[in-house]
């Protein structure tokens, strides 16, 4: 390759082509990313652990047994909730500081079988609890576009690693928006597939009812490549669906003319208390889809003002149930914010928990009905751009709320419904920060969702400049 520093910004498909054409070796490619991680991890705080030796050894082994497939030899990073055998899964917490995984998570097995090379474990909000990604143990992952701002969370390191050019793609988890929100704030693509579409076996749980494994990538096509590898049903995971997968990669290019297609815009709630520039960017995306022939229709969603309360009422008792064995032994090792959340879990009545789970069914049914009338829904991904590190509250168009609430305001509802949702870039804010739009599709309709997302993501008008790092 003429300039190895360019390598870190290439898509998975471009990297794969460079490997196939012999422009770079797998070993050199892995070394490029490892060198970059060594240089920029102190500033980005993306990685918790870098597996330099095992990544190089894996690269050499792959070179000896040439394989095929677009992920063969491609370096990636893992949110440190996801197990990789013989390595620590700290979950971003002192509580799990000595927790060595005995098996690979199912998704790691799938990526390894495809020839992808794990570079290491990525930073996160302790046990994926918060949206800010602030972590007292490992520091706070930093936004690639402005080092005074958050990368987003809880998959903060996953977003930072891809946005800083330290990894070609990353896996994260999304319980209330923890993949989509950091993707939006960091200028990336972030997919939360349908609940059950990707196995969660070998992933430290936060809230079983709401946890989804997600993908952070440079563009939608890369996301389709990775989903194709990960979407295989896992009979050993009780939450995994056995529904057959689609051909995501072949269908991602299937949309050009949108005549006969319809877009639902739920302006109530999703257009309230939003940064005006983010709304304008969302409207530009809608206008583009309309010009492509789509019918745009305003749709009504359930009353979403309490959707965060419903989510919290499910999250905290489930988290408490998982953490009880460690809480009794190591309560002092938990961060103050997460321990308080667990305390909340103890006070919630069973009646409230069951009602919240029934409201999940109610919400899911209502969104199913809305999606009978339109192909996809479109909303802003977040009402704000990346907040300053350390900010506690944010004011947006007359509404003052905790920063974490704002970052998840438009995403957490779709964890309660389980529908697939993706955040893609919609433009740059005048503050020099990325903005994103969220598309929501029918249950298990990832192929169609990705096709709509790619149509937008492939337009120059919605491309973002690379961050100015150096």
């Amino acid at each position: 390759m003429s300039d190895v520093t360019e390598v870190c910004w290439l898509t998975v498909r471009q990297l794969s082509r460079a490997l196939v054409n012999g422009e770079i070796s797998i070993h050199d490619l892995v070394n490029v990313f490892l060198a970059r991680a060594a240089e920029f991890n102190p500033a980005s705080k993306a990685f918790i652990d870098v597996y330099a030796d095992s990544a190089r050894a894996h690269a050499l082994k792959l070179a000896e047994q040439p394989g095929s497939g677009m992920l063969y030899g491609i370096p990636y990073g893992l949110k440190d909730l996801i197990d990789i055998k013989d390595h620590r899964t700290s979950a971003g917490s002192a509580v799990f500081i000595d927790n060595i995984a005995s098996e690979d998570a199912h998704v790691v097995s799938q990526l390894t079988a495809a020839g992808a090379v794990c570079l290491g474990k990525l930073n996160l909000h302790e046990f994926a609890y918060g949206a800010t990604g602030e972590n007292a143990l490992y520091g706070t992952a930093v936004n690639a576009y402005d080092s005074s701002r958050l990368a987003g969370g809880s998959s903060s390191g996953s977003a930072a690693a891809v946005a800083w050019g330290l990894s070609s793609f990353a896996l994260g988890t999304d319980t209330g928006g923890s993949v989509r929100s950091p993707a939006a704030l960091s200028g990336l693509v972030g997919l939360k597939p349908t609940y059950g579409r990707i196995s969660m076996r070998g992933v430290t749980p936060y809230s079983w009812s709401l946890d989804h494994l997600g993908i952070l990538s440079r563009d939608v096509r890369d996301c389709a490549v990775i989903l194709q590898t990960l979407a295989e049903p896992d009979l050993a995971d009780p939450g995994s669906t056995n529904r057959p997968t689609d051909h995501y990669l072949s269908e991602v290019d299937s949309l050009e003319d949108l005549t006969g297609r319809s877009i639902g815009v739920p302006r109530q709630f999703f257009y309230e208390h939003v940064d005006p520039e983010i709304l304008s960017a969302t409207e530009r995306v809608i206008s583009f889809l309309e010009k492509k022939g789509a019918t745009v229709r305003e749709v009504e969603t359930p009353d979403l003002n309490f959707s965060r309360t419903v989510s919290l009422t499910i999250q905290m008792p489930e988290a408490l149930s998982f953490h009880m064995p460690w809480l009794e032994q190591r309560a002092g090792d938990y961060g103050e914010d997460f321990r308080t959340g667990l305390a909340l879990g103890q006070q919630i009545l069973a009646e409230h928990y069951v009602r919240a789970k029934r409201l999940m069914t109610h919400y899911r049914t209502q969104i199913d009905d809305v999606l009978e009338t339109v192909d996809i829904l479109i909303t802003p991904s977040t009402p704000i751009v990346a907040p300053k590190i350390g900010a506690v509250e944010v004011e947006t168009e007359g509404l003052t709320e905790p920063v974490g609430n704002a970052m998840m305001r438009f995403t957490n509802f779709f964890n309660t419904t389980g529908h697939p949702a993706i955040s893609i870039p919609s433009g740059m804010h005048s503050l020099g920060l990325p903005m994103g739009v969220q598309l929501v599709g029918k249950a298990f309709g990832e192929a169609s969702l990705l096709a709509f997302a790619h149509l937008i993501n492939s337009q120059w008008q919605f491309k973002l400049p690379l961050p100015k790092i150096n």
Partner: protein
Amino acid sequence: MPKDKPTLELLRTVGDTFGAHPFSDEDLSELVEPKLGMITSFKDLMDELDQLRTIDLGALPPALEIKTKDSTSDE
């Protein structure tokens, strides 16, 4: 129906009586008067949960496996 604001003493009693782990007064105080910006107060949460009680859910069950209209019986 508005409820009285839960006190630290009440939360401590609930935890000590029914819970398996005794949370510290410091942790429980955050539920009474939040300062960390992570959660709303327990009182606000209870008020919102009370409002959610007014939604008629009929016999709707808790969330189960996701179905789609073209799902077959063995899915």
